[in-house]
């Protein structure tokens, strides 16, 4: 028996190529499409389904109605071209596309919207991509002030006033930190910024404005609409909700009882209420409760509500990431002598946020799509505009073309966000799991 059990390899085996039938397209198709009878049947069935949908959709899309001025004209053109059946009426897209993008924004100001979008892109680039030049970070710091100025216009000074508030707060924080300690300095910084905004900024900037009336023509919020409105609300809410959500998530995990109670209360309250309710509060109730002097812009109110709403969701997503971190990471950071904020910034958050990327981006996409709800309170986002367009006698009866187009517009943005998140996950992948 023993001679059968004992075995000694004298030569190690060389690496061989895998069998040809398992590589290349043939191998891929065999493994993924025609792997057994059941799968082959399903594959053929799926191919037929795709063909069926496309065979209906493509003729509908190819319709000679680009120049039509109304739905009736569309029908005449289709009949004149000798085609039958239900075909798309593209005239509405030609006529109303610009409106779907800009709403009722004055056409001579379109460049402002486009420039604002470019600046936002330039400001976000260094945050989103490593390869973007670091100098663009200046744009990142300034675009929250430049973009509203471009969109709403008016004198430049109030926007400068808001910016200076942050500068004042920063310098107070920086120079008070040594004397007062971190927490008191932070409070001092915030207080001094608010003192500037509430008491000083208005008179000082007003005085400068009367001497140097630099500015752009003022555009009322009522003129905002279309995709531009959706982007204004959506992007602001997205950019605002992430930092706010992180703060709320940390607050919820805090040992400080009152901080924790406030954060839990806020999150649970906001999550427990439908967004539409909050939007109604923004559009009607706030006007009743606030004194007339405090009345502020409807779009700003909506942005605040949408931001708070998404921040509550974001907080829970981030908390999930925090909970997934092993306790050892906190302990290692502590053992090295890092204080709470440094540990959060350098060790905990980079990992927790990385874990929560899919959830964060889902929330972003959700927020962006939820901006269509503002049509309920009478703002003319693309969906609100489509109702207005369909109420026009010329286009009464149009459905698929408009909603399809709006769907495509939203899809482009949401899909880009989704792809970006996958890129980010791949980039941040370190080592084996």
């Amino acid at each position: 028996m023993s001679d059968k059990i004992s075995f000694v390899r004298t030569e190690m085996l060389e690496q061989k190529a895998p069998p040809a039938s398992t590589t290349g397209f043939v191998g891929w198709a065999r493994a993924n499409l025609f792997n057994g009878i059941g799968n082959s049947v399903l594959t053929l069935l799926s191919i037929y389904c795709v063909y069926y949908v496309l065979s209906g959709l493509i003729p509908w899309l190819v319709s000679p109605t680009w120049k039509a001025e109304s739905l009736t004209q569309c029908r005449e053109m289709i009949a004149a071209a000798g085609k039958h059946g239900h075909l798309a009426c593209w005239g509405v897209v030609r006529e109303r596309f610009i409106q779907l993008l800009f709403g009722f924004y004055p056409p001579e100001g379109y460049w402002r919207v486009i420039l604002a979008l470019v600046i936002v892109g330039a400001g976000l680039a260094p945050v989103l991509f490593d390869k973007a030049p670091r100098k663009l970070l200046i744009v990142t710091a300034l675009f929250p002030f430049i973009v509203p100025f471009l969109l709403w216009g008016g004198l430049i000074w109030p926007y400068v006033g808001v910016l200076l508030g942050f500068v004042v707060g920063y310098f107070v924080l920086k120079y008070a930190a040594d004397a007062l300690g971190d927490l008191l300095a932070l409070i001092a910084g915030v207080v001094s910024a608010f003192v500037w905004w509430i008491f000083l900024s208005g008179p000082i900037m007003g005085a400068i404005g009367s001497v140097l009336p630099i500015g752009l023509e003022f555009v009322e919020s009522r003129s905002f609409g279309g995709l531009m409105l959706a982007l204004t609300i959506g992007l602001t809410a997205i950019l605002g909700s992430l930092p706010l959500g992180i703060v709320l998530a940390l607050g919820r995990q805090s040992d400080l009882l009152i901080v924790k109670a406030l954060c839990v209360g806020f999150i649970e309250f906001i999550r427990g209420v439908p967004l539409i309710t909050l939007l109604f509060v923004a559009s009607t109730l706030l006007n009743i409760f606030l004194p007339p002097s405090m009345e502020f812009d409807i779009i700003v109110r909506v942005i605040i509500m949408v931001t708070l709403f998404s921040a509550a969701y974001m907080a829970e997503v981030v908390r999930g990431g925090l909970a997934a971190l092993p306790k050892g990471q906190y302990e290692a950071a502590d053992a090295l002598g890092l204080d709470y904020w440094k540990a959060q910034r350098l060790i905990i958050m980079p990992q927790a946020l990385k874990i929560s990327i899919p959830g964060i981006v889902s929330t972003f996409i959700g927020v962006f799509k939820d901006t269509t709800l503002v049509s309920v309170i009478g703002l003319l986002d693309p969906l609100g505009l489509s109702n207005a367009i369909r109420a026009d006698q010329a286009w009464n009866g149009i459905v698929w073309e408009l909603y399809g187009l709006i769907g495509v517009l939203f899809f482009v943005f949401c899909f880009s966000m989704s792809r970006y998140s996958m890129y980010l996950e791949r980039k941040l992948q370190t080592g084996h799991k």
Partner: protein
Amino acid sequence: MSELSERTIDRSNMQVSDEVAIQINQMNKWYGQFHVLRDIDLTVQRGERIVIAGPSGSGKSTLIRCINRLEEHQQGQIIVDGTELTSDLKNIDKIRSEVGMCFQHFNLFPHLTILENCTLAPIWVRNTPKKEAEEIAMHFLEKVKIPEQANKYPGMLSGGQQQRVAIARSLCMKPRIMLFDEPTSALDPEMIKEVLDTMIELAEEGMTMLCVTHEMGFAREVANRVIFMDAGQIVEQNEPEEFFNNPQSERTKLFLSQILGH
């Protein structure tokens, strides 16, 4: 134990001085109702190499985790390098930056490279310029014999390599005391040796060390004192020679027979 015999240990720098590094007086700790550490009295002189042994749940990890306040004690006194551990955050941060710690599961930061793991604390806690911090880090990575891994991420390294990085990371803060919490318990036998070798080198340089470990070979060869804990108390402590050859308490005898018996 046999792993250690290949190497003769240079004892020239292993000297215990009169200076007190850690002083623990009548320290008690509870987890809720459970009395996990009971009346602990311990004085550690600078240069001592102490191995703390004992069955699991005896409180040995909790004890060394109290020394850098990863766990809070509720009664008694812990004085590290002349600074008493109280809830004063300044004292805690001061002690933590002078006491290095290695964990059973390494706890490297997986999102940072090996080099970044090592430079993080010097840069952000000690305000060392980045370049200098990197030089220090490379020095200690060479010391633990993995400078070539500096730009990899922890997930790409073996367990033994990760633990050596963790040691290097602690050393970059130039600690005066090193705490080891079962540094080899999560490692394969082949990797245990490389980590123990690193620890021996540290001991040879005169580092004050407290090690919770089951490596009795290490205790015999390197430690100058072995502490045996059970049920949250120090049951017996002695020089390794005496401790292993002539244990006094029944509990110690039983423990030694179980761990050395096979």
